[in-house]
């Protein structure tokens, strides 16, 4: 969920920007030159995957996949998400410039957190890993929803109800993201386990 321009208070915008700069700096440190094409190309693939319209009853939802991005990229997910969001702002005018920081935080912080939170579980093949993959997709969106709500509420009490509704709207997305992340994980494990090596790195 992108927050639009002009909604958040300057303090929240600044906070988001600072966190994004720090996160991006940490992420870029971990990107050596060999990893540049990998991070960029995965970022492009995620951008395109987010164009998939998944039906849920009468509505279509876009995939987010930030949990999976965390799984595959760890900290490097931060610059990757920043770039993807910047391109979305440029090409579709989703989100925007001043909210780029906040939007990056709401998407990337859950990605990195889930990477560390579920790494342990994912190292055990079979059911634990499957649960871990579902939980990763599910909780990344949950955290994103919470962070969006937090950004809105920090802007002003007036946004309390809006924040609640936003959170509510995230519930179906969470479930679908959980399921999809699980299937993608199973696919990768079968087809290209090398891609999941980041989970095993110390």
């Amino acid at each position: 969920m992108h927050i639009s321009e002009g909604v958040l208070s300057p303090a929240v915008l600044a906070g988001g920007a600072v966190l994004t700069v720090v996160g991006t700096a940490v992420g870029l440190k971990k990107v050596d030159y060999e990893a540049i094409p990998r991070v960029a190309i995965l970022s492009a693939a995620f951008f395109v995957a987010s164009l998939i319209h998944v039906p849920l009853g009468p509505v279509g939802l876009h995939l987010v996949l930030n949990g999976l991005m965390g799984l595959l990229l760890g900290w490097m997910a931060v610059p990757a998400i920043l770039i993807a969001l910047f391109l979305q702002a440029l090409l579709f005018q989703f989100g925007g410039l001043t909210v780029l920081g906040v939007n990056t935080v709401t998407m990337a912080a859950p990605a990195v957190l889930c990477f560390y939170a579920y790494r342990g579980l994912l190292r055990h093949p079979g059911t634990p890993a499957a649960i871990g993959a579902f939980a990763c997709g599910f909780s990344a969106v949950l955290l994103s929803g919470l962070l969006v709500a937090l950004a809105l509420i920090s802007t002003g009490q007036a946004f309390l109800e809006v924040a609640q509704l936003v959170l509510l709207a995230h519930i179906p997305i969470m479930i679908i993201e959980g399921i999809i992340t699980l299937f993608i994980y199973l696919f990768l494990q079968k087809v290209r386990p090398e891609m999941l090596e980041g989970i095993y790195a110390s």
Partner: protein
Amino acid sequence: MSDALIVLENITFAYPGAFRPVFQDFNFQLPPGHHLGLIGPNGCGKTTLLHLIMGLLRPQAGSIFIFGKEVRKEKDFVAVRQKVGLLFQNADDQLFCPTVIEDVAFGPLNQGKPPAEALWIARETMDRLGLSGFEDRITYKLSGGEKKLVSLATVLAMQPQLLLLDEPTTGLDENTKQRLIHILQDLEISYLIVSHEHDFLNHTVRECCHVHGHCCQPLPPRPGKEPVSTCKKAVSAPGKEY
């Protein structure tokens, strides 16, 4: 004419944003029981033609009749796709399931077959193409030739009445090409092959047809053992140059 499998009448099609149409008042027809080759230079619209037939692209003007019935709306094409199989130019575009058997059973499942029957059909189709033993192979890791054959299996598993093949031989080695030729020669259904390779066409079709901007110029079959020239000649006919 009403018994032709496919009829395209006065089709005009341009890609959105393109500065000139790929087809303008284009006519084409495929009589039943025919094995037809389709040739023409890069970008003359061969792939576009197949996609128009399958309803993956929609013409701006003109009518399409498939098995004698006019098709216009998405609903009509959904029915067409049950009876006409398309083999993509690139096998990688066609295969997206982790294992071969899942991929081959995907079509029958979408046709509403129960899982057990879908699996049975998938196995049976793979046997027919000499692919038994491939069930649990990872599709992504197959060699180029194997991918092509599995793609063909995914299409044949839907038991189509007509097969459209888009450059089925690109990147294939000689052995796989031979195998493909044998498989096609044994098929009982009509098919239409797009290819740049005349050798291959000589073995699989008896007639070739050259795609132009306005029509598909048929080249009549020649009696005798040497249909090579049919296809060869077509190539040297003046095409739309790029």
